[in-house]
């Protein structure tokens, strides 16, 4: 099987779309999260009305920390380089498998 793939055509519109969505989603959400985190600390410091909220918040923080680490790992290990290449490789792999199965069936 030929595993080498030619570079995918640069799809400028797709890249712009990706960047726009990333910004639209990430920036407001990060601001919101920081505001909520400040409120969380205030609760933790003694507002009696809701210290039990610590449980779900700790759950969320643990999960998010894990994914933040995974995101960092993925970034450092080149998972986002040639970001469009995997979609071509997946199709080539499937086509190769279909050919092999057809050859196997005809034997």
């Amino acid at each position, binding site marked *: 099987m030929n595993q*080498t793939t030619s570079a995918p055509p640069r799809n400028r519109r797709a890249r712009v779309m990706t960047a726009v969505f990333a910004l639209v*989603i990430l920036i*407001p*959400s990060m601001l919101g999260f920081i505001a909520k985190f400040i409120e969380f600390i205030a609760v933790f410091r003694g507002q009696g009305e809701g210290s039990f909220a610590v*449980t779900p918040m700790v759950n969320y923080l643990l999960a998010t920390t894990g994914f933040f680490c995974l995101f960092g790992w993925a970034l450092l290990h080149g*998972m986002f380089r040639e970001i469009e290449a995997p979609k071509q490789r997946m199709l080539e792999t499937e086509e190769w498998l279909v050919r*092999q199965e057809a050859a196997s069936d005809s034997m």
Partner: protein
Amino acid sequence: MSSASLTDNRTVDVDRLVDRKLVLYFYLASLTYLFISMLGGLLMAFQLIRHNPLSGIEIFSPGRWRMVHTNAIAYGFLANALLGSMFWAVPRLTLRPVLSRLLSWFIFIAWQGVVLATAGGILLGQAQGLEWGETPTWIDPVALLGLALVVLNFLPSIVMTKGPLYVTLWYFMAALVWTFLTYAMGNFMPEYFVSGSAAGAVGGLFIHDLVGLFVTPIGWGLMYYFVPILLKKPIWSHGLSLVGFWGLAFFYPLQGIHHFLYTPIPMFLQYGAVISTIAVELVVASVIINFFGTLRGSGSAFITNLPIRWFYTGMIFYFLTCLQCAFQTTLTFQAIIHFTDWVVGHAHLVMFGVFGLWIQGIMTYLMPRLIGHEWYSRRLCEWHFWLSAISLAAMATDLIAGGLVQGHVWRALLPWDVSIEASMPFWVVRVFTGLGMFAGQIVFYVNIYRTFQLAQQGAPEAAPAARPALVGA
């Protein structure tokens, strides 16, 4: 036997890459539980219009049947179908078989044991007091062990894959970890570690994370796999698909508390859940745009390619249900729709309208390959689709409208009886739409059975021109 070498000097035994018999058994188990669940749903529908055929029998009381209905869908229908599909997709994406064929069969048998024990436990009155987590407490550790074995079986193939991962594998990898953690959090923390409102908050996280961190990532992962291979073209933007994945990872886990608006849970936490729900709607929009961008130029496939029609109909329902979610989690909407049939309509729209349709689309594509014969009847396949899709759309519309009526009657502080009488026409329609969905499944089962018969008789396949061209693009 067919083996072939790759450029990285590995040899792939193509014939042993996927255990097709195992995938088929998962699908048959899944469809069996769907049948049981639909029976439970129909019984509940008849109960609401005061025609319960099993009235007075404690073991089949409506409260217990309702839990069998929901648990059979989540752990019987969806879990079996999604696992079966992963047993097909993961080896084909990674070109590596799962860790152990023996372990795979053990997981299959053990999972059926867990689901059947759950159903038996619920009917005998041993349900755990946790929505979607009614599995009796003595089954919880066994189910968690089963999930750990699933992780052990799939993860090595994914982790050993070199180079940037395809988005499907990201979704699968996350779902494996999320499901294990979500199940542990939801079933053990409220039972043994926290109580009161904290337990309620964790319960809210659990019921929503079960959908968003177990079913959703595997469902979307499968769509990112099946849609490109059926359309024979890559996904529009792999980068955008990764935005969708990481957006889900960071925003989804906080939103479960939107089930508990107007409760003693602190308002900042409730507002956080509302904001993260709206943020997820933007993530969902990115995913939908990506898939419809992929369909662009191949629009006729929506008509001619039956699995694609299942998939994209499910995506339209997904967009609608998430849009609905973004609105209904606001405090204004909640004041009207909380505890009404609106929520039931929403749940049916997402569980059957989205994931149920995707799974049936995958089965429509894979069943002939697993059975070894083309479908017995293309016409029955069409009936299956239209009965399922139209009946589900009608049921969701009916329940959503009925929920609004109920909510307004309650807000007007009218007597409870008034809301019951006002709901009755909607509940009658619900019975008929449920029967329509059930009829769609019966048609599907007949088609599968007849296809099996043809395969066993060794009947020759029809000539390509006459063959039911389900995937004709």
